[in-house]
């Protein structure tokens, strides 16, 4: 009896979906920013699409009258969010225009920070600032006068304190480059508060230090800043806020959304990371369908045994998921989430430097780490790439960014296609396809892989000498024990990659090796049966079908 009474009285949050939008009037030219209409035309997407029309007001009112609390509305999903008891929701379910009701989360958990600050010396800081952009050859954009001008980037995060006054963002404020702000948690325009994670992310897209060092490349873009995350989380409420923010960004003409947020085991199971289940992923896919390029951090779960895989919305098949490499070692950094998505789509799509110099709460700069910061580096990169190639649709741009990766056409579930390269957008750089680099000897029981001797670059990475006259206090060892060359902390390392692709088209396993001497690797033949062995070194890729 008590159970029945309790479950009847318990208030939960629900998504209530409507059947239609009959009789609503909608003028897209009044509703949308001109950029949004232009983007739709370019993407061949209707400017008066059903999903952009408002909900039927009488439907909304009827549901609101029956519910306890009204929490929000989504045009894209043709649904509203309400809090209601079991008996109330049963009444709502009986309404003729209600097609579906989904329970949403309604619990509080404590927000945890993913990033750790490490203080390096000035030499290292300056070199890292250079490297976080140079690893993408992004200086070439600047040399061509490309700064993302004409593009609008929406940043969804937890707060942007200091952006309204810090010198790092002077150049953007001076030209009124912040074209819209909204806090979807507290429903106000003030986003210059709460935790500084959003400010740090912003700096990796467009920040410039007082001595004119650029932390990100899209210094000429316009920005929409939205808070969708709160300190005391309310489960799926943040994902819902993200959806509302995406609709707002779409309305206000955003071309790119940067989301350095990820939702994992608190809200979902691994099987939900299939690109179509999590509400934030569905929202990201819808935004993409409307011509917006959604750039998302892959997640910082790579070293967490309970999860390891990408975090929503990075699982979306039309989302550009960005993983992280370690600038010292040159490959996957241990926290960066692994792919694939649970439906075995390639994730992350690309990678960028994941230990960066960014804005901090004291309005200066410091080192920080996380895929939260590799994603905005790529978001800024994407804005410049789009400015250089304005005829591309968002989907074409995503594919071009993938194919500009320094590993392309090789890929794996730690690096995607590697780090995107700016020169691919500024000239017709052909990818290297010459496979004479490799000597593959198929024996009776093993396959032996060697590299042409003159192409072996004996990387100093793993030959660290204590006698180096390097700069003091440089980190010389990663957490996982890999030694760092302190004379050249940030260089592109040439490593050997291989993976085994099965006949269903996804990878069974992949590996990264240092390159010192031949033979590079021997692989048991029985492991290669019915598989494609794909190997990559120095920009060359070779595939061998077994």
């Amino acid at each position: 009896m008590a159970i029945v009474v309790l479950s009847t009285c318990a208030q939960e949050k629900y998504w209530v979906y409507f059947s239609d939008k009959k009789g609503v009037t909608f003028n897209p030219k009044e509703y949308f920013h001109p950029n949004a209409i232009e983007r739709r035309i370019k993407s061949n997407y209707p400017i008066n699409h059903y999903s952009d029309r408002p909900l039927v007001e009488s439907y909304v009112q009827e549901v609101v009258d029956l519910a306890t609390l009204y929490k929000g509305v989504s045009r894209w999903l043709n649904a509203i969010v309400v809090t209601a008891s079991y008996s109330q929701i049963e009444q709502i379910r009986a309404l003729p225009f209600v097609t579906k009701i989904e329970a949403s989360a309604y619990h509080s958990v404590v927000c945890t920070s993913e990033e750790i600050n490490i203080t390096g010396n000035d030499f290292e800081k300056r070199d890292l600032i250079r490297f976080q952009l140079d690893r993408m050859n992004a200086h070439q954009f600047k040399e061509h006068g490309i700064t993302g001008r004409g593009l609008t980037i929406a940043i969804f995060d937890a707060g942007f304190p200091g952006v309204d006054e810090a010198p790092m963002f002077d150049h953007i404020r001076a030209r009124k480059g912040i074209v819209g702000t909204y806090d979807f948690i507290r429903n106000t325009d003030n986003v210059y508060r709460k935790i500084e994670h959003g400010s740090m992310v912003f700096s990796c897209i467009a920040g410039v230090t007082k001595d004119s060092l650029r932390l990100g490349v899209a210094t000429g873009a316009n920005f929409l800043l939205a808070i969708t995350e709160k300190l005391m989380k309310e489960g799926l409420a943040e994902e819902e806020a993200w959806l509302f923010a995406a609709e707002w960004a779409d309305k206000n003409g955003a071309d790119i959304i940067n989301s350095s947020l990820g939702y994992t085991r608190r809200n979902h199971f691994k099987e939900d990371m299939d690109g179509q289940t999590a509400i934030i992923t569905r929202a990201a896919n819808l935004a993409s369908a409307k011509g917006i390029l959604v750039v998302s951090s892959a997640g910082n779960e790579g070293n967490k045994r309970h999860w390891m895989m990408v975090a929503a919305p990075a699982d979306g098949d039309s989302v550009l998921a960005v993983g992280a490499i370690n600038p010292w070692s040159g490959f996957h950094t241990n926290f960066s989430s692994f792919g694939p998505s649970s439906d075995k789509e390639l994730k992350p799509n690309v990678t960028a430097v994941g230990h960066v110099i960014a804005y901090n709460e004291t309005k200066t700069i410091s080192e920080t780490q996380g895929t939260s910061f590799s994603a905005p580096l790529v978001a800024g990169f994407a804005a410049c790439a789009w400015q250089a190639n304005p005829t591309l649709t968002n989907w074409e741009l995503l594919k071009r960014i993938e194919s500009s990766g320094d590993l392309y056409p090789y890929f794996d579930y730690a690096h995607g296609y590697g780090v995107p390269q700016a020169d691919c957008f500024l000239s017709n750089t052909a990818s290297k396809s010459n496979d004479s680099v490799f000597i593959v000897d198929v024996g009776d029981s093993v396959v032996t892989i060697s590299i042409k001797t003159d192409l072996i670059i004996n990387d100093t990475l793993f030959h660290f000498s204590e006698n180096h006259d390097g700069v003091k206090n440089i980190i010389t060892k990663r957490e996982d024990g890999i030694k760092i060359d302190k004379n050249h902390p940030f260089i592109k390392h040439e490593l050997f990659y291989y993976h085994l692709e099965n006949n269903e088209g996804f990878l069974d396993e992949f590996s990264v090796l240092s390159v010192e001497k031949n033979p590079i690797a021997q692989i048991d033949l029985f492991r290669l049966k019915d598989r494609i062995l794909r190997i990559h070194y120095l920009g060359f890729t070779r595939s061998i079908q077994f």
Partner: protein
Amino acid sequence: MRIALIAYVLVFPMVCFGQETLLHKKTVETLREGDFGPNKKRYIHTFFKVGFYQKTNAWNACSIQGGNSFTTGYGIRYKRKLSSKLSYGYDLGYDFNQYRFKRDSSSLYSQLNGFLTADSLKTDKLTFGMLELAPYFRINFGQRGDHLGKYLDFVLSGGLMLSSKHVLKWDHPNSSIIKKSTYKSRRLGYTNKLFFGIEIRYGNAFYNLFIRYRCVDIFNSKLNERPYQPSLIRLGGYLIIPD
């Protein structure tokens, strides 16, 4: 030698020469969803709890001091999932209890000690520790991932008293010789050893609030002085320590 060779073949099926393997990952490891977790098939976590006994004035002879009469404990909680809404499990832990009595009439101990009176008695404290086993049935609310979420537990608790102590302190009537006297008793024969009760607790992620009703008296029939009637109701909270 043969064992070493077999081990080598099993452990290193992919052999690399001269090179250091910097990263090697099998996709199946990333996609594997285990069955252990807050909202998976089974879960186990530790907890700490604190509760306070309800202050009572129901008995003329002996009332309970609310703030000083408390319970605390720690243990492990096992959970087995039946569905997204229902689960069951048990708590196994140690439960420490302290009652502070406030008396306004003669006590049991006046029979043992002629000069102890209600007026001179300053402290009357009973403490005992129990091993506790508490099976529960859980109803979860709301959609969630691998997370404890919000829930309501219906608990049956059983306890075995492991130790007990009764302490009395009073002002000695002849204060020129003795200012204060203390009387401690252990292994009390006038308490029950087995207890059971019912509890309802509300949980929200990492904490619980509970109300428990004890169905067995602390004191048994050997205590012929009945004014002792400790409170049956306690209120408190659990702090959940996730794995």
